[in-house]
C-alpha cells in the first residue's frame, strides 16, 4: 500500500505549517493546523466537502494570507510572501476546476508557467536584449520539458481549449511543472475522470515523484488516494483530525465516520460494504510526524 520508493522519514521536512489558520468573516475555514510534508513523498489531503482543503492549498501557495500561523518551506518562512514569490521558491499548484488559458496554445500555457524562472522585463523586450533572447529560448525549452513530462509534447502547438478534459488537466499540470517546483499541489486532479483516465493520471503522478518531485494532492477518489499516498492528512471543519499512512487512516474511526464511510479501503463505490477499521481514538490512530 505504501509507495515502494518512499524515502526514509529522516531529515528536515519539506514544508512545515504551524498553527495555520484563516477566517472568512465569522467562518474559521482553516483552524490551527500544524503539519509537515516530507520531501519526495505524496501527501494526500482528504476531508469532507468544505473541510478547508482547497483553502489550505490556497494558504500554502500564498494565494490567501493566513490570519494566524506560519508556513515554513525548505527552512524558510514564506508566510508573508506574495504568490509569485512562493512559486519562485518552488511551490506550484493546480486549481480544483481546471483553469488554463483555453485560447492560447498548449506550449504558451507551459511557457507562462516557466515565467517565474526568467528575468527578462519590459526593457529587455523593447530592446531585444541578449537576456530576452536567452530567456525566450530558455522558456521554450523549459516548457517543452514540462510538456514531455506530462506527455503533451506532440500537442504543443494546439490551442489548449481544443484538448479534451484529461488533456486540459495535463496542461494545467504542465503549467505548474514548468516552474520547476519542489512541491506540486494538485487540487482534485481526478475529478470528472473515469477509472481508465484516473489510472493514467496515477501513473503520471508516480512518474513525477520518481523524478524527485514532492506532491500534495486533494482528492475524493479513494482508490487514487489509497493507491498513491505515502501519507494522508485529514481535515475536518478546518482542523486536522488525523495524519498517517493510508493504513492508519483507514483504521481511524473518526476519519471513517466523518469522511470515509464504506470506502475506508479504497474500495469502489457500491462494492461490498467493508467495515472500516477497528475502534480507536484519533490520537493513537493518526500518527503525527511532528
Amino acid at each position, binding site marked *: 500500500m505504501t509507495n515502494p520508493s518512499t524515502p526514509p522519514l529522516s531529515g528536515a521536512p519539506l514544508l512545515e505549517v504551524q498553527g495555520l489558520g484563516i477566517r472568512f468573516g465569522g467562518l474559521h475555514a482553516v483552524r490551527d493546523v500544524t503539519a509537515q510534508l516530507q520531501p519526495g513523498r505524496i501527501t494526500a489531503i482528504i476531508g469532507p466537502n468544505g473541510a478547508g482543503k482547497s483553502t489550505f492549498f490556497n494558504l500554502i501557495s500564498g494565494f490567501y494570507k493566513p490570519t494566524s500561523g506560519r508556513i515554513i518551506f525548505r527552512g524558510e518562512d514564506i508566510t508573508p510572501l506574495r504568490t509569485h514569490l512562493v512559486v519562485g521558491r518552488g511551490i506550484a499548484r493546480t486549481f480544483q476546476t481546471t483553469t488554463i488559458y483555453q485560447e492560447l496554445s498548449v506550449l504558451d500555457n507551459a511557457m507562462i508557467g516557466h515565467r517565474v524562472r526568467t528575468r527578462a522585463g519590459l526593457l529587455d523586450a523593447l530592446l531585444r536584449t541578449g537576456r530576452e533572447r536567452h530567456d525566450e529560448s530558455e522558456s521554450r525549452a523549459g516548457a517543452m520539458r514540462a510538456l514531455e513530462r506530462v506527455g503533451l509534447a506532440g500537442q504543443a502547438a494546439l490551442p489548449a481549449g481544443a484538448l479534451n478534459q484529461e488533456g486540459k488537466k495535463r496542461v494545467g499540470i504542465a503549467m505548474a511543472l514548468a516552474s520547476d517546483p519542489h512541491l506540486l499541489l494538485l487540487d482534485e486532479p481526478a475529478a470528472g*475522470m*473515469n*477509472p481508465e483516465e484516473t489510472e493514467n493520471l496515477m501513473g503520471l503522478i508516480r512518474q513525477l515523484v520518481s523524478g524527485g518531485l514532492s506532491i500534495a494532492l486533494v482528492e475524493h477518489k479513494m482508490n487514487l488516494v489509497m493507491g498513491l499516498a505515502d501519507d494522508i492528512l485529514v481535515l475536518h471543519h478546518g482542523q486536522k483530525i488525523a495524519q498517517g499512512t493510508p493504513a492508519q487512516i483507514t483504521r481511524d474511526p473518526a476519519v471513517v465516520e466523518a*469522511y*470515509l464511510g464504506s470506502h475506508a479501503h479504497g474500495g469502489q*463505490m457500491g462494492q461490498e460494504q467493508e467495515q472500516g477499521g477497528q475502534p480507536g481514538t484519533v490520537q493513537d490512530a493518526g500518527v503525527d510526524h511532528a
Partner: protein
Amino acid sequence: MLEVRDLSVKYGNFTALHSINLTVQPGEIVVLLGANGAGKSTLFRTLSGLQRPSGGAATWQGTPLTGGKPEFNVSHGVSQCPEGRLLFPELSVEKNLRLGAYVHRRDAAGNERELEKVYELFPAMVDKRHAPAGSLSGGQQQMVAIGRALMARPSLLLLDEPSLGLAPLVVEQVLAAAQQINAQGVSVLLAEQNAYAALSIAHRGYVLESGQVTLQGTAQELMNDDRVRSAYLGV
C-alpha cells in the same frame, strides 16, 4: 417516457452527437456511460433546452424538448443538475434553492416542503443557507446544484455527473437520494464517471462513445460486459 430519436448536435461543423436514440421509461433510472468528451453533457444540455439539436427529436411525455427554451422544458417537468453547476454565485444558497422552484412560484407551501427535503439531504447546507453560493467549497456548490434541480420537482431528472467533487460519503447519499426520488416515480437520467456506483442503482444504461451509442442494456448486462468492465469499471 423520454424518447430521443435520431438526435444530432453540432458545434460549428463538429458533430458532437450522431443520431442518438435512447429512451427512459417512466420510473426508470438510466445511466449514461462514456469517456470524457463522449457527448454526455451535450445530450443533457440538449434535453434541457440549452442546446439546439441539428437534427432529430426528443420528447418527454410527448412534449417536444428541442425548442431551445429551457424555461419551457423545466415547466414541463424536465430539470437538470448541469455540468459546471451554473449557480448564482452572489446570491445566497437559499435564494439559489428557492429559484430552483421558480416554475412553482405560486405554490409557496409546496416549495417550503421541498426546501426542507433538500436540507435533509444535505444537512451541510443548513449552516450555509445565507452564504453566497460562490463562497462555498467545490463540493458544497455541487450540493446546491443538485438541490436546485430537485426544487423544480421534476418528473424527469437529469443529473450530469452529480458526484463530481463530492466526498465519498456524500456521493453515496446523493445516489441514494436519486434512488429514493426515483422510488417516488421520478425518472432519472444519470451521467456518472463512477460507473460501478451508477450501474448499481440504475435499471438500464447506455454507453456513449464519440457521440454515438455503442452499447445498451440492463444495468446487470452492462456490468458484466467486458468492454464496460475494462473501460469504465477499471476492473
